[in-house]
């Protein structure tokens, strides 16, 4: 009886000990992440700032570079799955890839359209914080619109856009299903003045999906919008 109790006690103690070590490791990793993430956000902001303010860059080149930024920093794969909800599992790998390609282009086109309006704006990173779930982070930033040069004019108070980036470190979150061995930050949502890009996309595209069979219709619609983007440029 005593032996059984001691064994049980030791088992619990050892488990707790390893759990504690593990949590400490996660905490240390997360602190390192904050430093790395600050670099990540500064690097991204600098690139955006350069592309938008460099007058020597042609308009088409600028758009191409903004698209590159989108594909480099945004996790279009996750956004695609989030948008499709349960339907992504019902699609064949080929169909999923077809949808992802056309949808990512659609998102990138929207991103270009929005970002190129801020050519004379200021981009400020305010803070980088851990989120509740391990490996999840929030970058809080502001875009200060220069109303004298931009087309949209609003009073001083509304000249600032609050942009929150939801970022993930794939190395930490993947756990058993390891996705990446190195620090690999990707943005999976952008929340502008409280409006989530992922949520809006899910409502728009997901709302159209009555079943996975009409995915072709949606691919065609997205393709049409992409062609319109190309025609307008």
């Amino acid at each position, binding site marked *: 009886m005593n032996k059984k109790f001691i064994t049980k006690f030791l088992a619990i103690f050892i488990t707790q000990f390893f759990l504690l070590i593990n949590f400490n490791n996660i905490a240390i990793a997360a602190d390192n992440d904050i430093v790395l993430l600050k670099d990540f956000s500064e690097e991204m902001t600098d690139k955006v700032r350069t592309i938008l303010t460099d007058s020597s860059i042609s308009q088409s080149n600028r758009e191409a570079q903004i698209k590159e930024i989108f594909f480099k920093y945004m996790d279009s794969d*996750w956004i695609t*799955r*989030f948008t499709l*909800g*349960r*339907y*992504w599992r019902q699609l064949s790998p080929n169909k999923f890839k077809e949808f992802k390609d056309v949808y990512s282009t659609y998102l990138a*086109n*929207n991103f270009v*359209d*929005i970002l190129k*309006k801020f050519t004379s704006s200021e981009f400020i990173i305010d803070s980088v914080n851990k989120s509740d*779930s391990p*490996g*999840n982070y929030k970058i809080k930033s502001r875009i200060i619109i220069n*109303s*004298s040069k*931009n*087309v*949209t*004019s*609003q*009073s*001083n*108070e509304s000249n600032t856009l609050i942009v929150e980036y*939801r970022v*993930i470190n794939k190395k930490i*979150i*993947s*756990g058993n299903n390891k996705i990446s061995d190195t620090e690999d930050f990707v943005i*999976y*949502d952008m*929340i502008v*003045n*409280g*409006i*989530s890009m*992922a*949520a*809006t996309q*899910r*409502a*728009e*595209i*997901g*709302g*159209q*999906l*009555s079943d996975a069979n009409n995915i072709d219709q*949606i691919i065609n*619609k*997205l393709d049409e*919008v992409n062609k*319109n*983007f190309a025609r307008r440029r």
Partner: protein
Amino acid sequence: MDFKSSKECLLTNLITIKNFFIIIFMWFSVTMTSANDYYGSIYDFYTGHDYANLDFPDNEITSSEKNNQDPLELVNRHIFAFNLMIDQVFTHPASEFYRVIVPPFGRDRVDSFLKNLTSPVIFINNLLQGDLKEANNTFWRFVVNTSIGALGIVDVASEAGLPYKQQDFSKTLSYYKVPAGPYLVVPLLGPTSVSDLGGKIVDFGIMQKTITPILKKNEKTDVDILKVVHYRAVYFELISDRINNSIDPYTTMKSLYLQNRNNFNESKIGNE
């Protein structure tokens, strides 16, 4: 004498119509689907989404949200199409012209002027929410901007540390956790909910009792037209982009409206 009695008759009818709307509004607020709670749960889901968890527990939301949060979708979609048509024919060209002839500096002045006009609505709603500090700020903002700021054309008060903080009766209802009711698209007014529509009617009533009597009839019409054209110009790109770049502008506008509404509720809770 006849004229007076017919005027009284008209007044009585108006009061009856007003009562009818109040009853309808209360009935809607109390008996219809508590969309506020429903939107809240979707918003929690959206903002609480976990990267690692691609097996979303709320997978069913995609199909159910469509029916539950928007029971009047069919009617709403028709009204949305009508509003879009009106926008393309009248408001869009007018706001485009306005943006061409009025430079950003001028638009900022118009913005300040229109915001100053809504001060009585903000003041009363500050009081209704028991926010005496903000009521005091709003009062002094109005006094300073109307006098020194030339009827609000120059926002002197903001520079003096009294920033503009928007308030309306919809937010007061939301503050007291009155259910939003179903999502609605109202002809000419656009996206709203039952409680927000009620809020707009009350705000209109406050304006009728405070600002409108000061204005002459033609001035009132001018201000109303200016308001529509100016705010369409402010959101010109956002609206135009969403209409042109969306595969379903109706759903996108609905999502933007609901998220914006929830965002206000969340921030209000956060401030408490």
